[in-house]
């Protein structure tokens, strides 16, 4: 499959701080690639290096072999959504788009079309200063789509959106991919992206942790699953477990978690030892657990909390846990 974006040994040093460290990955054409990592892992810096906004200390970041600054009329090839603040507050929404269109040689008819596409046609004449965060994000998306680019780069586009907005964004991104565009979308929340992306590039501390498909990432969830058991006879249970090669840990006065155990194994085991069990719950490690596990190993600033197994989360529910890393930054 051809690559839309190639990043090779990309490195960025900011005054002694290594923000991006020998990062290499590729974004396949026509697919949605999630660019995932905790806050401060170098995602934004990487995207800004791709777009020629931040200079490169080492390595390359190219579109079909060409740097952004070397593209003829780059807005026609690459559309980008960066932070939501880059508007002049007293400029009208359609004037913002016209200004980009005129500068990039795009017909002005595209202005109305893209405003329609992102649902801002009714407020085209309103000044951007009066826009909500969600409306600004939509205007950013309209700006990115103006040149009908084959590649979209979205930096944390879900930030500040309400649940409906996030749902809209997901549909929007899938629609863009269905029309053949390649999308690179960054997020610090895998749950936000797991219904949207085909591939994932996971980074932590400026380095690549893993590049794979979402399907492959999903197969890794099995490795962290296990059983939680609530029992009034924990002492007898742990004594019995000592004889078999499994790891377990106590997570509540009357509950233990047994790594790698399955219901098919645990049921007969407690019956054989005649242990009273009030509750047996299967922990299916979520994608988030996998993501967390992958990035935690690389990020010393995140405290490890092994004693709290996660409740299987509802995949992608908009209101699900805020930051994956719970304000560890």
């Amino acid at each position: 499959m051809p690559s839309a974006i190639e990043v090779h040994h990309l490195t960025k040093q900011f005054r002694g701080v290594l923000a991006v460290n020998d990062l290499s990955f590729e974004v396949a054409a026509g697919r949605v690639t999630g660019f995932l990592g905790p806050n401060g892992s170098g995602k934004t810096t990487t995207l800004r290096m791709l777009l020629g906004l931040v200079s490169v200390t080492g390595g390359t970041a190219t579109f079909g072999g060409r740097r952004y600054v070397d593209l003829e009329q780059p807005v026609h090839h690459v559309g980008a959504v960066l932070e939501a603040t880059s508007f002049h507050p007293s400029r009208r929404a359609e004037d913002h788009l016209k200004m980009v269109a005129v500068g990039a040689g795009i017909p002005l008819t595209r202005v109305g079309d893209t405003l329609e596409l992102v649902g801002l046609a009714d407020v085209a004449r309103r000044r951007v200063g009066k826009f909500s965060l969600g409306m600004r994000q939509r205007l950013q998306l309209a700006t990115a789509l103006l040149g009908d680019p084959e590649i979209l780069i979205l930096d944390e586009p879900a930030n500040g959106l309400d649940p409906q907005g996030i749902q809209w964004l997901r549909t929007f991104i899938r629609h863009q991919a269905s029309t053949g565009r390649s999308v690179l979308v960054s997020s610090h929340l895998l749950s936000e992206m797991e219904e949207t992306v085909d591939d994932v590039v996971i980074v932590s501390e400026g380095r690549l942790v893993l590049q794979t498909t979402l399907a492959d990432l999903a197969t890794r969830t099995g490795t962290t699953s296990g059983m939680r058991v609530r029992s009034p006879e924990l002492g007898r249970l742990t004594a019995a477990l000592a004889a078999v090669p499994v790891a377990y840990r106590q997570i509540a006065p009357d509950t233990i978690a047994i790594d790698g155990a399955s219901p098919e194994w645990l049921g007969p085991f407690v019956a054989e030892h005649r242990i009273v069990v009030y509750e047996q719950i299967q922990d299916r490690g979520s994608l988030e657990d996998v993501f967390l596990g992958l990035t935690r190993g690389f990020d010393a600033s995140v405290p490890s909390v092994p004693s709290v197994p996660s409740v299987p989360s509802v995949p992608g529910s908009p209101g699900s846990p805020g930051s994956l890393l719970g304000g560890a930054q």
Partner: protein
Amino acid sequence: MIAVVRAEWLKLRTTAVPWVLTGIALIINALLILVIFLSPADQSVVSSGYEVPHTTQQLRNLVGSGFQGYLLALLLGVLCITVEFRHKTATTAFLVTPRRAVFVGGKLILAAIAGAVLAVIMLVATMIAGGLTLDARGGSFTAMAHQLPAVAPGMILVFALFAILGVGVGSVLTNQVAAIIVVLGWFVILEGILVSLVHGAEKWVPSGAALAASNLTRSTGGGPGGPPGVTLGLFNWWEGGLLMLFYGLVFAAVGSVILSRRDIT
């Protein structure tokens, strides 16, 4: 480059900056016209009260009464580039025009045109307001209009040059407040001090160069309402114009190099 300049024009006119600056310039112009007509008469004709401008120099002063607006052309240049950094629209600008020297070049051309247009607006306003007042006082509008060719080309040139200098300084000092303080501090205070302290500095400082350039269609210096503190010993008009352009372009070149290396985060 034409597309870049057209986009810059759209950017400029969709903010309040040019309209506010033009408004301020016109108010200053109106006050100066008022001052000209209210100036006490020559001692010899004191009985007739106020004197109606009638000599060549008086009429030129009237036509060029908007000259003080050159500072607003300068601010126009400063604002049109620093606003991109103040509101972080530079990110969008650099996505459309990734080569930052081209971005600065577009601003320079747009500012030169906008500066010239500001001069034209002020000349037209002066001809209308000053002409009507003159006519009401029994003066000759035709005589005033005859001085237009002597004043207008130089004034338009100088406004364009000041706007270019403003973009140049703004490309180096992208912090809007800092850039405004620096240009006003220089032209209102520091330049006058320098000229009074250093012999022969007047022809080399930007105001002296600009005043020389304002003599485009006149033979001698000391033009109408020209920048203060500078009178004689100036370059001829094209030397002054080139020197002023040189100052603007040196700043713009330095600014382009700095901007090209700057990380937009």
